[in-house]
Structure formats: structure tokens, C-alpha cells
């Protein structure tokens, strides 16, 4: 926690489409940016929730997928070399005596920024956690929401809970190396691809993995080491040995501590003025799905517009002594700078 903060001109919280385009617009206005995102990659909802789905309402792109849009936006920011910090969740902000902002991540990483741009969408995108007592004690040791390192599952008693593609794919992938593997799901039907369901049933028949009908009720273990889970199917309740538990219940957005930073809010979103997208705290801006104003539409397109106006005001705060003139990208030397 005692690490010196990273000093920067603009700190952008959230590397979704709005945050990425903000880095471009700020760059055009002569401001350099750092971006933080709790996800391990850029693109926000487009990359995390619908990378393969085509989007039809991006001007001049009759059809572009979420993943393609993300790649293009990243390419567009490149002349300005923004710095990315992934797997970092912004948790606290305070105004410093020098008029700048101190922003801290939950990892302890800290920034000191002249302006803060909140492009946090609906909040940090994170896996859904079932309401099981003591779950936090096991997270990262026995309980996981994704597989980062397959080796951590070899030779273990694994329970995979869920009925979608991730649950089935990982169950089948991990079964060969596991001591035991049980797929736990609440019903006989699966939302996963029919081909995967067929393959999973074959593996169950061949005795290479188990399938149990039921829902999680209780975690059994101590000191962060899980031993078993208790599950129930209607009235019937049973225990399954489990030293690793993988949970696949989809994702949710959580604004979390950010909502308590002191900006005026409405319905969980940050109120901004539509001339420059500044919040009720001068120097803190909000754009994209995170902001609200009369007539706000949660569209990627709106986030782009909001980023452009924000940058015009933010640059004056970062460099108050410079003369700022508006330039078209066609005449800007900055945007043409070879990367």
C-alpha cells in the first residue's frame, strides 16, 4: 500500500468502447491517459458479453462484431499510446490538496490524476456468486469462477456447477486429469450446445465423469480448503466430495464502491451535464453507460459523442495554461503520428 502512486494526466476507469474512445479523444486534445479495467482485456460488454454478435448501429460499419469493434478501437487509440492496467478494480477516490485526484485499486496500485474519466458502464463485470455461507473464505483457493491454470485442478475432486457451455466445456476438459468430477445442474435440460450435451452424456455413461441433478446448498471445509459440497434436489439432499468447485452462473455488473465517491447519482448512475460530461465534482467526468442525463440512450454511439465533448473540457483542466483550439482529425498531426 505504500507504493508511490502512478502520476498521470487522465485516468480512465473502464476500457469498454466509451473508455477506449475517450483515450483517443483525449489524445487528440493533447492529454495522455492510463486506463484501468477489472477484466483481463479491453472492450467492456462488447468483448465480454457478445464478442461474436454483430452490431448494426455503428455509423459507417453496417455490421461489426463486438470483438472487431474492440480491435478497431484499440488500433485507433494506438497513436496516443495509452497505458492499460488490467485485472485492476478501482475502489477509492479522494481529492488531494493539490487539486488532483488520488485513485486506488483493490490491489493497492494507486494513481494520481489531474482528471478522472469514469467509463465504468453498468459497473465492474464480474461472475455471479451464489449465496453460500463462507464462500469468500474459499475463493481463489478451492472455489473458482474461471480456469486460469488447469494444473490447479489435476488430481482433485472437482464439482462444476452450471448448465451452459462454459460449465460443460470445462467439465469435459478437466475430467481426464481429475480424481473425480461431478457436473451439478438443476435440471435435465442444458442451455449448452446440443453437441456438447451429447458428448457429456457419453462421458457420464462411460464412467469418465458424473452428473447429479441438484442445486448447491452448503460448503463443507475449513481454512480455505473445501472438502465437500452439500446439494439438494427437491427434498433429497446429498454430499459430493469437492476439493475444487467451479461456478458458472453468468456475469453481473456491480457499480460497487464507485457509487460512494460523492458524485450526485440517479438510479445507480452518475449525473452529468451534457455540455462537457462533468459530474457534480469538477475534474471527474462520466461517459457511456455509467452516466445519466435527460434523454440518455445506452448506445455505443452515445458513448463516443460523450467522449468527444468530455475531452474538450478535460484538456483545459489538465493544461490550464495552454491555448486549446479545436482541430479536425484530418488536420491533426497527433492522430497521424506513426505508432
Amino acid at each position, binding site marked *: 500500500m505504500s507504493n508511490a502512486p502512478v502520476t498521470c494526466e487522465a485516468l480512465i476507469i473502464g476500457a469498454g468502447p466509451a473508455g477506449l474512445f475517450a483515450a483517443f479523444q483525449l489524445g487528440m486534445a493533447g492529454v495522455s491517459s492510463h486506463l484501468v479495467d477489472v477484466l483481463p482485456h479491453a472492450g467492456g460488454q462488447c468483448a465480454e458479453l457478445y464478442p461474436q454478435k454483430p452490431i448494426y448501429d455503428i455509423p459507417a460499419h453496417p455490421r461489426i462484431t463486438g470483438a472487431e469493434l474492440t480491435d478497431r478501437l484499440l488500433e485507433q487509440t494506438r497513436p496516443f499510446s495509452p497505458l492499460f492496467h488490467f485485472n485492476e478494480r478501482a475502489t477509492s477516490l479522494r481529492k488531494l490538496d493539490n487539486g488532483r485526484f488520488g485513485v486506488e485499486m483493490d490491489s493497492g496500485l494507486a494513481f494520481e490524476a489531474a482528471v478522472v474519466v469514469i467509463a465504468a458502464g*453498468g459497473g465492474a463485470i464480474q461472475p*455471479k*456468486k*451464489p*449465496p453460500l455461507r463462507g464462500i469468500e473464505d474459499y475463493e481463489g483457493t478451492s472455489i473458482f469462477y474461471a480456469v486460469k491454470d488447469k494444473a490447479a485442478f489435476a488430481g482433485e475432486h472437482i464439482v462444476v456447477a*452450471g*448448465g*451452459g457451455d462454459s460449465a460443460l466445456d470445462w467439465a469435459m476438459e478437466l475430467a481426464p486429469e481429475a480424481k473425480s468430477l461431478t457436473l451439478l*445442474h*438443476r*435440471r435435465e*435440460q442444458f*442451455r449448452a450446445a446440443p453437441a456438447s450435451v451429447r458428448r457429456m452424456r457419453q462421458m457420464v455413461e462411460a464412467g469418465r465423469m458424473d452428473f447429479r441433478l441438484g*442445486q*448447491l446448498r452448503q460448503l463443507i471445509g475449513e481454512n480455505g480448503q473445501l472438502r465437500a459440497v452439500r446439494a439438494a434436489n427437491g427434498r433429497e439432499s446429498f454430499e459430493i466430495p469437492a476439493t475444487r468447485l467451479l461456478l458458472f*452462473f*453468468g456475469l*453481473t*455488473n456491480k457499480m460497487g464502491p464507485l457509487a460512494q465517491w460523492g458524485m450526485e447519482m440517479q438510479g445507480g448512475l452518475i449525473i452529468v451535464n451534457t455540455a462537457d460530461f462533468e459530474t457534480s465534482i469538477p475534474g471527474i467526468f462520466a461517459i457511456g453507460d455509467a452516466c445519466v442525463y435527460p434523454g440518455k440512450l445506452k448506445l455505443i454511439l452515445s458513448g463516443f459523442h460523450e467522449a468527444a465533448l468530455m475531452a474538450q473540457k478535460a484538456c483545459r483542466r489538465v493544461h490550464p495554461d495552454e491555448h486549446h483550439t479545436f482541430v479536425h482529425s484530418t488536420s491533426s498531426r497527433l492522430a497521424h503520428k506513426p505508432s
Partner: protein
Amino acid sequence: MIKITFIGPDGKKHETEAQEGMTLMEVALKNMVPGIEADCGGACACATCHVYVDADWVAKKPQLTQRSETEEDMLDFAFDVRDNSRLSCQIKVTDDMDGLIVHVPEQQG
């Protein structure tokens, strides 16, 4: 006016007034009923608007527990799913629901 009561996991009652045609999720948000998050805004794509239809009402109006296939799929992302589980964005309020009671689960996710 159609009266609808949401009961929280702590037993706390939230009495609301609904209009025909609204979804139960919209009624909950409008009245700031805690525990209905509705991340996806009613698109049946998040399962954070999960409720349990009160047992008396299941007996009175069994259609209230009829779920579409998409809703059933989406419920895979909810916790402690029971026979009387519904996604509240998929229930349209009608005149005959006056007095309806639904229970809000402990956690949406």
C-alpha cells in the same frame, strides 16, 4: 389500482401499486424494492429479477408459474430455483393480480 406486495428475505413487506401492462420487475424498480436488480432491463438475459410466487397465489392462479423456454434457460443463472420461481420481468401485470404476493430471494448474484 392493482396492489402487489413484495416480501424480502428478512420478511419485510413492500406494498406497491401497479398498473396493468407493467411487468412485475418494473413495478419493483419504480418502488425501489430492494433485491430486484434487473441488470438487463427486462430482456430476460440476466436472471437478477428472480422472485418466488406466493404459495396461495400459485394455488389460486397456477398460470403464474408457467415459464417460457427462454425464461427456464435463464433461470439456470439464478440461485435456489424452485417450482414457484419466476423472472419478474416476464410477468405482465393484469387486473386479476390485485393482492398478489411475491417473495424476493436472498441474493440475485
